[in-house]
């Protein structure tokens, strides 16, 4: 798979590094020479000097054959243009834009860029969640379907400790997926018996997080203000 990363700042750098480690073919486009030279030292030919919003640069960096373009500069408008160029001019199948202003998520979607990532929004939702539900930790919101991936550590007082998963009554559409016990991780099925200290990764609808928490931890559901 061939990925183009537009923007060689901190996000672009670490993203490129991770993708290269994963064995993907990557090009990171950076327009500032000094920054580009640093990237070139580390990534060699995977670094490309140019403005990732320009048609010519994208073409030379291989946009026509790219499977995915991630625009991660610090400027939302630059990321918008890179993504729009990649999508419409070069028909890149998948584009992802970093956005700094969370309000731009809706704007970008309106302009045809569906996948956006806003660290502001992620941190904000963590804070929001932290206030409501302290011990069920949200890992990620799954884009379509309003589902969330959450993590919860089972205390001794949990009502579901020493019980088989199939015998536990969970809210609708909640699924216990993974269990981490000590150094082992295992996929959960109906016969899995949960123990105190287990770390569970579960899928739950956004609207049912409080009920899920009650089921997992045994605390009374507090009605929201």
């Amino acid at each position, binding site marked *: 798979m061939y990925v183009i990363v537009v923007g060689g700042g901190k996000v672009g750098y670490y993203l490129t590094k991770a993708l290269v480690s994963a064995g993907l073919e990557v090009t990171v486009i950076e327009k500032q020479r000094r920054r580009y030279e640093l990237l070139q030292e580390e990534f060699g030919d995977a670094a490309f000097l140019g403005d990732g919003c*320009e048609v010519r640069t994208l073409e030379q960096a291989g946009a026509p054959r790219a499977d995915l373009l991630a625009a991660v500069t610090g400027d939302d*408008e630059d990321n918008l243009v890179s993504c729009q160029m990649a999508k419409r001019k070069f028909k890149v199948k998948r584009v992802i834009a970093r956005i700094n202003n969370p309000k731009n998520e809706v704007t970008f979607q309106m*302009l045809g860029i569906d996948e956006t990532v806003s660290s502001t929004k992620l941190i904000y939702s963590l804070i929001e969640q932290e206030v409501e539900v302290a011990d069920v930790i949200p890992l990620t919101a799954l884009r379509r379907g309003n589902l969330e991936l959450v993590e919860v550590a089972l205390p001794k007082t949990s009502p579901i400790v020493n019980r088989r998963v199939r015998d536990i009554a969970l809210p609708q559409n909640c699924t216990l997926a993974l269990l981490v016990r000590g150094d082992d991780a295992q996929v959960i099925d109906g016969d899995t018996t949960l123990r105190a200290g287990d770390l569970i990764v579960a899928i739950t609808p956004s609207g049912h997080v409080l009920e899920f928490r009650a089921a997992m931890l045994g605390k009374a559901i507090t009605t929201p203000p």
Partner: protein
Amino acid sequence: MHAVILGCGRVGATLGLMLEAAGHSVSVIDRDREAFRRLGQHFKGKTILGIGIDEDVLKKAGIERARAFAATTSGDNSNIMSAQIAKVKYKVPRVIARIYDPLRAEAYKELGIDTISPTLLSAGLCLDFFLERPFRTVVEYQALPEILAHS
């Protein structure tokens, strides 16, 4: 009609003054307060401090009732983005973006945003001037020349 101009540089300010002289209502947005000085003392329109890709700023400038929007900042991408917001979200009838990069201007024209590329205009005019040819139309100047089309 009400017009919103993004960018109070030379073009934005001149356009603002021209529109007002022609009897229209004008709001000008710029992120630098000093830029509004270009409008002079007799400008009756509204000035809004802020960036044009922020919808709160656009709303303060009256984008919801605007019939004309011009994006004239020095940043092509800001102009492209705000012009699209004006056109697609606020359905402003006449939207134009000034885009220096001829290839980008061409690409966005294909996407339905009216663009004006001063680069092509200026270069074309100078060329005709040197070759002692009569000047052509704006549309003709905006056509992307072969030399730029291929890398």
